[in-house]
Structures are given as structure tokens and as C-alpha cells.
């Protein structure tokens, strides 16, 4: 085929298409002038369908997906009528349906079209179903038969009401021993009945076991794994567990796969016994015995590692542990062969080797109930009074406030030295200057550290391994100082924006993180150049808060990522290349975790935060394995969300320090354009995201603990507050309509954050405005009422800006959708421009672009960079001539930029207005509609009212 020929064919094709169908033949005949091959070529092309919805018009990935259409309620399949969707599993959907003939409820499992459409497979499946139907056992969900309707084929099964074992463990953790035995015995009996008939389950796992309210167990999906169209029947389909994340569903890991399955060998009843052992283990400990973050890690664990038997010993009688070990024997030849042995064992009364614990290990303490118990003025306080402890050393908790002549800084964090002797914190002395202070924990000794004036910023100070030096950021440089006196020395590391954690090991190496984007760096404490020690992975923006583990070479740190599946605590090593650092997540977390060694030398704990609770969970620093269950050791602990920092610190000696209450002591406060406070609005509380109404008479604000936040409306003139939303989910991010009649907000009552709309006077309930898989946060409503800007939080493309038309079709239009984080978009007052934040340059900056939704997402050329340095949270002045935004440097400053949008767009150089109070970025702010003042959520001006709490020997409270 020559290029000329090709072009000729193409030309003829288009010319023929331009003609009426009836004329094409004649046209071609003359145009090809006797060249038969040419004519046939073009005609064969013309014969192809020209529709716009053929298989090539879709996405390639769609060729892979099972195009299973969701059946609507009311659909008839044979004699069954679909009532609703029960579950979306790996092998098609399961629906609840009514048998119209027998008037009973059933479960319908719709077969994927690849099975249903293939005659051979369907026939084989039918035979299997017949055998399954013959299984008649109280602990096996009965298969009634097959049903069909059109191209749909479904398995009709007994409908079992109850909770899957997987859900139960996820909800309540490890089960009481009696339940484990009862459930285990029933599963074993189900397996026994099936094995008798030669049927192997192949995919036993907690998600396939349902426990009814009365305690009856039904095992589902027997043998169905064999129905997969996989050519390879050894590795059954379902051995890959499916995990639901906030963003959707991802393929999980083969947690329950037996070693022989992993090796691709034959599967028989012993595979079921392995899985049975896994399920037993998981019931007893709340965790699967072989769990890894990735497929490879899980398989490695299955093939080579022993489960943590230690997690069992105090809970299970010796013969149960023995049974487990026989079930989890990696060599199938050595494994328990006959499940009936297990039945016998579990029927008998358990021989309790150790008395069962007084209360289940895992419990989330409701913050409200706990608050009063914890804080005691001074002296001894026995924590957790409901635990009858027989420990010899008790946990001691007391508060540390400022001394008579000093005042804490409002945003300050306190850190404890590794040897547990000192507390370091910023404070203002009599001379009015803020610097770092030290306070001894075992002597009466409080003193300032001269030379640290430049560093006493909100970022917490770090300690050297020998508790001798402090590390902090001063003048944008990493600085060290000997606590016994001396001049501070700066190291050549730029920590502009703030130092976010530094760890200094025995070998004199320092690993540090920074507030601004980037990986962890390493530098010798004696000086030198800093080099990266980690590398940012896909979607990650920062690495922060390093802490060395006892071996002094490996360290814990936090990876900050837009993907909740990635964000969390990891272990890095000084002896590993930055791009080879482990990607195995130790703990999913939105803030740092610290390792607290056990003072008696055993494995210690990981201390981390969940919401505002401080948690401890056993952690082995050698195997890097978390075990057991997390236990809350403190409540109401504050955090700096932007810095992903929880205000707590741990020593190697069993001391934990934390600060609680800042977030719950915010007061909406007006500040003038010069930065002077002008009055408060409403009482102190836990607020976020204030939004002034267009007429300035009201302020909508989110309020309450983050898990159960509601929108409230504050009346500016009267100072009263009225509750606006009442749902028990988290309602947040209020945005007013331009006419002040409605409020849009986000709520996660359906799982992810969706957009809701409610009349501002509360005259009607909220209605769901827009729902989708990803979490969304509304940010701005145009002055003509036509569009609502919102941010989607997507693991795939990062945060993006969308616009929702508020009139007509509510189909969102992408506005800025680059593979970076774009968020916080605000309309200019005339609605023609939007300002937003993007980190495409590596740091967060404010951009402005024209708002032209009809052009689709992103005409990159049209955006203008407005901020210099960094920028967060922009707000337009009501006359559209200025843009305000906040910077996130060593201080949080409010900047203003002159805007000239009369002809084209021009932005002036940003000017600093004033340094805002700490935490204005963390909780949100707004500008009053008259453009004359700002509304911040101010932390108490008098920092003295927020003490630190020191807990000594905290682990003693965990022992029973």
C-alpha cells in the first residue's frame, strides 16, 4: 500500500460519504475508472457501520468491564421479581427478589454475561448447580435453582438475613470466645456436609459467612468459584478480596489463598480447611492471619511467614490454638485433613487456659462521655476507671500550664525529650519575646533557651537521640542548639514554610520533613548538604514527621497524598535509595504516628490519632507489624490539619504529651483590614468554614466534632445561633445562594461527600442536589445564581474544580481538571472569573482564569498566576477589584492583590496585609460582603487557658 494509494482511498471514502447513499455506487464506479481493487476497498469501508456508539467509540477499558446492567426493582426474571440490590460482589450482583409463586423471598445472583452467553460454560454450571442444590444443610445457603429471562441468567438462592462475618469483624473487632466456637463449629459442619458430597468451597472467607441475628450461620457461594470463566481453575476467582475505599472499589489482596493455590497447584478439601483456619484466626484476633498491603506481600506471608500466634494466646484455649495451627499448616500433606475433627473440638466446652478479658479489646470511646474523666488538675489520676487493673505501676496524668511569668503561644506544640526528662515548647516570657523554653519533668526547673527567638513558631521542636539538642527552623534554616546553653547553629537546609519534624539518630544523621511539598531530606548533624532520603510517589505531595525506630537506621514517617489508599505512615531506611523506599503502608492515617517503646523492653506501640482521639496499638519495630487492636488513650487532642500534625509527642520512656481543646475553643471573630480584632460572633466552640450571607446579616458555619458536624447559622446583629442541619453525619462547607435564600453544603451521610441544598430559613428539609462516587465540597455560587463551583476529591486526577449548573440540567461541567490538585474555586463578583488554588507548580498558588464553562475543562493558556510564594484560600473583594488570599509561610499572612479586569486581566504584585492568627487556614475564613472586615475562627487570645497534658507510664493502663 503506497501512501498515494492510501490517500486516494481516504479521499474517495469521504467523497462517497458526502453523497446520498443511492448515488455512491455510481460515483465510485466512475471515480475508480475500472480499478476494481480500489473500488472494492472503498466499498468495504463504506459498508462499516457509522454509528457513534459502536465498541470503538467507548473506552478501551470498557471492553474489559463486565457490562452488567443494574436491574431495577420490579424487573421480572422468570417467576421472580427483583426488589432491590443486596450486594455487588466480584461475580456479578446479588438482588433480593420475591418468588411470586411460592411467595417467599430469595436472593438472585445474576451471572456475568461471559458465563451466561457461553453455552458450554452454562451447561457445566447447570450441572454444578444441580449438585449444589442437593446440598441440604442448615448451615449452607440453599441453592434453589437457575432462572432465566432473556439473556439474563441467575442463580436462585436462599435469602439469608444477617451480617457477614467480615462486616462483624470490621465493626466489632475480635469476637468473644463463645461466639468464635459457635460460629466456627457451624462453618465446620457446613464444610463437612459439602465435603461428604465431594464439593469443595474454594473461596471460604468471612464475606461468605452470614451470621443471622439468632446466631445461625450460613455459608454462601459454595463451589461457585469454579464457575468462573477462568481457564485456570486452580487459582479460583474469589481468592482476591475486594476492598471498598472512599473512591470506589479496588482489587484487593488474596488474603485467604492457600499456599497450594498460590503455587497454582490443585485445590481440594484441604484448601477449605486452610481457609477455615484463616477465618477462625480472624474471628479470634480481629485480623486476618496473612495480610499484606499488596498482592505480593500477602502471598509472601501466605507462603513463608507464620501468623502472629502471640495475638491469640491470651484469648484462646490451648487446644483451639493447636487446631488452628493444624489448619494453617502450609504443607497440605501435613494439614488437618478432615473438618469433622474440628467440629468435635469445638462442640466441647472450651478449656479456658486464661480467663477471658473483662472487656473486648477494641473499643472506640465516645468523646463526649470521656471528656470529663481525663483531665485532672494536678497530682495523680488513674486513667480508665472501668478497667480493674492489677498493674503495679499506674499511669499518671497531669496538666502542665505556663508558669507565672510566662504565657504559652496559642498554636504552640510541646515535645518531650526521648529520655523523658524534658518538655520543650514555645512561650512568651516577661520581656514579651517568644522563644523556646524547657521544663524538667523530674525536677523543678523551667527555663528559657536564649538564642531561640527566631524559631519559636508553631512548628514543633524536635530532639536529638541523646536528648541534648533541639532542632527547629529559624530564618528558614534548620537550626540546632544545645539545651545546656550555647549559640544556635544553622545547617544548610532550607526549611522555608516550616520544619515538619526532624529526627536525629545515634550516628549523627538527621532526617527532616518540611511543611512545603517535598520528600524527606537527610543531612549530617555536623553539617553538610542535604539530600533526599525518600522520593514522592504518585499522588504524594509531602513526606513529614520522621522518627527513628530503635535500630537507628529505619524511621517512621507520614506520606501525604491525595489518595486515601496511599496516605499514611510508612517505614523508610537510611540504607535504602530514595526511590526504593518501602511502599508498604504501616498505618492508614492523616497525621503522624510515633513509636513508643515499651519501658520493659518488649515490643512497643504505635501512637497515632483517629479523629480527635489518641490511639495506641502494639507494634513490633523489627517486623514492622501492627498487632492487636488500637486502644484510645486520650480524647479531644488537637491537630494542625494542614500540617497533618496531631499535637502529641512521645518519649522512649513511656511518657506521652498532648494538647487538647484548641479546635473546640474557636470563636468567630471579625478582624478589620488592618488585622485588628473587632468583635466576636457567637460563643466559643468547634467551628469550621464560616460563610457570610450575601446581605451580611447571617453567617453559616459548620460546627461540632468532625464526625458529626452540622451547619449552624449565626445572626450577626443579635449574636444568636440557630442549628441548620440535624443529620448525624458530617455536614460541612456551607455556601450561600446569591439571593441568600438557600444554602448548599456537603454531607457524607451516604458515604462519600455529596452536595445538598436547603432553604436558608429552614422552611423545608434539605434535598440531595448532586451525588457521585467521589467526595465533593461546594465552594462558590455565581452572583447570577447560574453555577455552583465545587471541588471533587479524586485519587485518580487529584482535586479538581467543577461547575454545577443550578438551572436546567444538573450535569456538572469540568472547569479545571489537570493532574494536580485544584481546589477552593471562588467566583469573582461579576461571575466572569474564578480564582482557585493549584499545586501544579509544586507549591500551592492562587490562579485566576476566565469562567467559560462552554469551552470545557481547562484552557490552560488562559490562567494567570496571582500569588507569589504560596497561596491558599482566596476571597474576592465585593467590588471585584481586589483578591485576598492567605499564605502558608513561616507565618500565616493575609495578602491582597489589585485586580484590573476592565480589559483583559491584570493582577498587581501581592501585598502583605497582616499576619493572621494561627489556625486561620486550618478552620476556614470569609470576607464580609461589605468588604470591610474578615471573619476568622480565632483561637483564644489568652493561650494560658490551654494547658498540655502529660501522661507518664501510659502503657500501664492497657495491661489487664
Amino acid at each position: 500500500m503506497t501512501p498515494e494509494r492510501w490517500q486516494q482511498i481516504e479521499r474517495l471514502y469521504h467523497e462517497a460519504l458526502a453523497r446520498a447513499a443511492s448515488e455512491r455506487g455510481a460515483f465510485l464506479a466512475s471515480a475508480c475508472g475500472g480499478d476494481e481493487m480500489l473500488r472494492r476497498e472503498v466499498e468495504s469501508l463504506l459498508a462499516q457501520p457509522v454509528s457513534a456508539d459502536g465498541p470503538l467509540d467507548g473506552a478501551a477499558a470498557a471492553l474489559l468491564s463486565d457490562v452488567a446492567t443494574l436491574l431495577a426493582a420490579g424487573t421480572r426474571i422468570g417467576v421472580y421479581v427483583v426488589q432491590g440490590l443486596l450486594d455487588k460482589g466480584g461475580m456479578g450482583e446479588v438482588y433480593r427478589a420475591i418468588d411470586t409463586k411460592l411467595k417467599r423471598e430469595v436472593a438472585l445472583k445474576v451471572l456475568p454475561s461471559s458465563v451466561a452467553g457461553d453455552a458450554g460454560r452454562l451447561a457445566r454450571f447447570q450441572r454444578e448447580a444441580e449438585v449444589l442444590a442437593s446440598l441440604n444443610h442448615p448451615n449452607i445457603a440453599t441453592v434453589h435453582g437457575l432462572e432465566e429471562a432473556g439473556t439474563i441468567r441467575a442463580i436462585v438462592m436462599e435469602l439469608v438475613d444477617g451480617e457477614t462475618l467480615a462486616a462483624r469483624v470490621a465493626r466489632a473487632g475480635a469476637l468473644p470466645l463463645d461466639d468464635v466456637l459457635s460460629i466456627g463449629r457451624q462453618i465446620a459442619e457446613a464444610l463437612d456436609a459439602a465435603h461428604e458430597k465431594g464439593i469443595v468451597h474454594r473461596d471460604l472467607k468471612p464475606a461468605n459467612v452470614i451470621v443471622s441475628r439468632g446466631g445461625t450461620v450460613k455459608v454462601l457461594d459454595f463451589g461457585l468459584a469454579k464457575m468462573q470463566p477462568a481457564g485456570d481453575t486452580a487459582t479460583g476467582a474469589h481468592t482476591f478480596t475486594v476492598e471498598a475505599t472512599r473512591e470506589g472499589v479496588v482489587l484487593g489482596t488474596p488474603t485467604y489463598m492457600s499456599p497450594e493455590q498460590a503455587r497454582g497447584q490443585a485445590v481440594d478439601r484441604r484448601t477449605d480447611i486452610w481457609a477455615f483456619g484463616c477465618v477462625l484466626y480472624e474471628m479470634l484476633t480481629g485480623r486476618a492471619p496473612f495480610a499484606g498491603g499488596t498482592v505480593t506481600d500477602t502471598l509472601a506471608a501466605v507462603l513463608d511467614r507464620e501468623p502472629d500466634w502471640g495475638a491469640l494466646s491470651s484469648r484462646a484455649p490451648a487446644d483451639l490454638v493447636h487446631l488452628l495451627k493444624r489448619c494453617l499448616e502450609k504443607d497440605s500433606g501435613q494439614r488437618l485433613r478432615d473438618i469433622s475433627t474440628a467440629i468435635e473440638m469445638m462442640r466441647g466446652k472450651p478449656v479456658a487456659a486464661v480467663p477471658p478479658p473483662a472487656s473486648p479489646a477494641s473499643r472506640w470511646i465516645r468523646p463526649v462521655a470521656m471528656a470529663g474523666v481525663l483531665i485532672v488538675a494536678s497530682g495523680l489520676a488513674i486513667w480508665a476507671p472501668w478497667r480493674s487493673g492489677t498493674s503495679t505501676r499506674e499511669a499518671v496524668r497531669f496538666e502542665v500550664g505556663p508558669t507565672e511569668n510566662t504565657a504559652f503561644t496559642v498554636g504552640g506544640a510541646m515535645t518531650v525529650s526521648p529520655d523523658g526528662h524534658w518538655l520543650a515548647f514555645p512561650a512568651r516570657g516577661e520581656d514579651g519575646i517568644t522563644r523556646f523554653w524547657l521544663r524538667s519533668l523530674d525536677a523543678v526547673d523551667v527555663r528559657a533557651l536564649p538564642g531561640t527567638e527566631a524559631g519559636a513558631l508553631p512548628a514543633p521542636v524536635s530532639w536529638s537521640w541523646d536528648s541534648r539538642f533541639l532542632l527547629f527552623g529559624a530564618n528558614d534554616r534548620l537550626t540546632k542548639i544545645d539545651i545546656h546553653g550555647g549559640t544556635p547553629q544553622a545547617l544548610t537546609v532550607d526549611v522555608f514554610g516550616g520544619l515538619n519534624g526532624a529526627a536525629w539518630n545515634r550516628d549523627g544523621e538527621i532526617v527532616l520533613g518540611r511543611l512545603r511539598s517535598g520528600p524527606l531530606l537527610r543531612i549530617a548533624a555536623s553539617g553538610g548538604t542535604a539530600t533526599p532520603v525518600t522520593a514522592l510517589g504518585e499522588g504524594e505531595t509531602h513526606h513529614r514527621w520522621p522518627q527513628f525506630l530503635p535500630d537507628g537506621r529505619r524511621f517512621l514517617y507520614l506520606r501525604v497524598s491525595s489518595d486515601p489508599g496511599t496516605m499514611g505512615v510508612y517505614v523508610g531506611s537510611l540504607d535504602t535509595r530514595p526511590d526504593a523506599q518501602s511502599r508498604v503502608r504501616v498505618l492508614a492515617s492523616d497525621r503522624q504516628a510515633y513509636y513508643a517503646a515499651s519501658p520493659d523492653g518488649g515490643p512497643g506501640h504505635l501512637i497515632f490519632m483517629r479523629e480527635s482521639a489518641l490511639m495506641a496499638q502494639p507494634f513490633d519495630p523489627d517486623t514492622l507489624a501492627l498487632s492487636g487492636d488500637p486502644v484510645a488513650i486520650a480524647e479531644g487532642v488537637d491537630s494542625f490539619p494542614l500540617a497533618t500534625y496531631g499535637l502529641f509527642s512521645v518519649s522512649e520512656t513511656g511518657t506521652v504529651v498532648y494538647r487538647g481543646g484548641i479546635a473546640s475553643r474557636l470563636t468567630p471573630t471579625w478582624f478589620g483590614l488592618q488585622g485588628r480584632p473587632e468583635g466576636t460572633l457567637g460563643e466559643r466552640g468547634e467551628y469550621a468554614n464560616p460563610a457570610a450571607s450575601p446581605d451580611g446579616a447571617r453567617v453559616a458555619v459548620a460546627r461540632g466534632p468532625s464526625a458529626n458536624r452540622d451547619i449552624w447559622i449565626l445572626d450577626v446583629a443579635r449574636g444568636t445561633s440557630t442549628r441548620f442541619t440535624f443529620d448525624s453525619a458530617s455536614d460541612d462547607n456551607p455556601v450561600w445562594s446569591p439571593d441568600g435564600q438557600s444554602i448548599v453544603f456537603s454531607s457524607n451521610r451516604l458515604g462519600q461527600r455529596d452536595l445538598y441544598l436547603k432553604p436558608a430559613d429552614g422552611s423545608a428539609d434539605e434535598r440531595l442536589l448532586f451525588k457521585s462516587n467521589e467526595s465533593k465540597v461546594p465552594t462558590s455560587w455565581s452572583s447570577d445564581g447560574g453555577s455552583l463551583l465545587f471541588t471533587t476529591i479524586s485519587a485518580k486526577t487529584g482535586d479538581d474544580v467543577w461547575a454545577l449548573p443550578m438551572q436546567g440540567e444538573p450535569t456538572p461541567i469540568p472547569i479545571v481538571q489537570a493532574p494536580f490538585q485544584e481546589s477552593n474555586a471562588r467566583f469573582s463578583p461579576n461571575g466572569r472569573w474564578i480564582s482557585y488554588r493549584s499545586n501544579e507548580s509544586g507549591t500551592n498558588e492562587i490562579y485566576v482564569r476566565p469562567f467559560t464553562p462552554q469551552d470545557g475543562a481547562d484552557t490552560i493558556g488562559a490562567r494567570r498566576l496571582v500569588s507569589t510564594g504560596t497561596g491558599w484560600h482566596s476571597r474576592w473583594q465585593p467590588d471585584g477589584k481586589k483578591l485576598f488570599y492567605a499564605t502558608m509561610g513561616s507565618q500565616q499572612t493575609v495578602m491582597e492583590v489589585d485586580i484590573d479586569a476592565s480589559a483583559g486581566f491584570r493582577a498587581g504584585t501581592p501585598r502583605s496585609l497582616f499576619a493572621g492568627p494561627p489556625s486561620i487556614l486550618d478552620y476556614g475564613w470569609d470576607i464580609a460582603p461589605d468588604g470591610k472586615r474578615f471573619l476568622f475562627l480565632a483561637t483564644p487570645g489568652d493561650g494560658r487557658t490551654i494547658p498540655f497534658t502529660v501522661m507518664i507510664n501510659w502503657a500501664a493502663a492497657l495491661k489487664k
Partner: protein
Amino acid sequence: MAGERAGHSLQATALVNEAYLRLVDVRRINWQNRAHFLAMSARLMRRVLIDAARAKGYQKRGGGAVRVTFLEDLPVAGEPGFDLLAVDDALRALSAVDERKGRIVEMKFYGGLTVEEMADVLNVSPETVMRDWKFAKAWLLRELGDTTA
């Protein structure tokens, strides 16, 4: 964006993640514009899909109904004769004869780029893109149809 397609494949999510993982080095490059970036990711997406299919040892099958089982656990549906590997081969053949049309198919089919975006990347008018696409599609459909006789 509006509403999730029920039954949307688990693999599609995993695949997009994998395609993105492979983009991690590439992202250090200063992208001139989004369209360019998407064109690259389309190419990568294609590689990811084909790699994964081949890794499973599947080969293009000729004649009769073809099912490509992509990953063992999740079944694949498709038109008879619509085989991801066959599409890839056909696309390769197309690219050999007409590079621009090959790129358009790649960007549209694997990357989901809009006509405007493709016009941007290729530096031609959107009308040209539409023309190319129409022809390329016809050609591919013919090639693929032939294999199922």
C-alpha cells in the same frame, strides 16, 4: 461524572491506577498542556492493557466468538470478535500506514480525549480530527470484522 455506571469494572479502576503508576517518572516533565499529558497517558494506558492481557498468556484468537479473559477473577464481556489484542494489532497496522490516524485512535479509544484535545495535540483542526476518526474507525472495524469471518 454524573452517576456511576453500575457494574463499572473493578479492573478499570485498578488499571487506571496502574497506568498512573507508570506515569510517575513522566510526571516530572513540565507538561505544556493537559492535552499533551492525556495523549501520553493514552499511550501508557494502551500499553498497560496489552501488557496485562499478554501476561496472562492470552493470544488473539481468530474466528468465532472471542472472549478475552482479562484477569481471571473478573469476566470480560465484549462483542463477538472484539478482542483487545486484535484491536491492538489492527491499530498497529493502521499506524504503519497512517501515523496520525493511529494516534487519533489511540488517544480517543485508550485515553478518551475529546476532539478539541486531539486537535490541540496534533496541531490540526477539529474537523480534520473528525474526518480521520471516521475513516480510521471504518478501517479498523473492517479489519477486525474480517478475523471473525
